[in-house]
């Protein structure tokens, strides 16, 4: 676990909320804030590849996800239980993620200077 995080962004939802979370996380990268992103609950569905969002309007977050690494956000956690619950295979996701095991989130929150939940 990292002990020098300035910001811990926790996303629990998909859709617009997830897009806003990614936007904020990318901005944190621009401002060189050492930031980690945590995907919990339905937010792990962001990791499903080839999403076709045109029919239902929400912004496709694939480009935002791909940009995380470019913006210096190289620590992305996905809750292992949620991945299993939503049938998202950790080996088939479009970006590198670390699976978050029960109990690890508390350590991340304790070690981060600020935690923001979306």
């Amino acid at each position, binding site marked *: 676990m990292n002990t020098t995080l300035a910001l811990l962004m926790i996303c629990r939802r998909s859709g617009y909320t997830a897009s*806003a979370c990614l936007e904020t996380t990318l901005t*944190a990268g*621009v401002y060189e804030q050492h930031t980690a992103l945590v995907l919990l609950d339905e937010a792990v569905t962001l990791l499903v590849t080839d999403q076709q969002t045109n029919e239902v309007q929400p912004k496709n977050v694939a480009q935002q996800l791909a940009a995380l690494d470019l913006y210096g956000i190289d620590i992305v956690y996905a809750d292992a239980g949620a991945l299993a619950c939503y049938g998202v295979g950790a080996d088939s996701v479009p970006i590198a993620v670390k699976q978050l095991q029960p109990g690890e989130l508390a350590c991340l929150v304790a070690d981060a200077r600020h935690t*923001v939940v979306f």
Partner: protein
Amino acid sequence: MPPQDEFHLPRAWQNLIERHSIDAVVCVASALKRGIVDQAEAQRHVLTGSNMLPGFTVGGLGLLMDAFANADRVVHFAP
């Protein structure tokens, strides 16, 4: 704008920030998405009027990052 016999939450916020001189910043993207604009945004979007209560200012994510960097704590209210 709530009905007259209901609690006026926006005005309560306004009273709070005025009484305690709080720097109250509204996310410009979220406000626009919900049809709330200050005078500058109204002009930029060629609208005839603004509807943001006095006391609030609009800001972007850069301002939020500055707040994160300088605040001793972040308090978050989730629905």
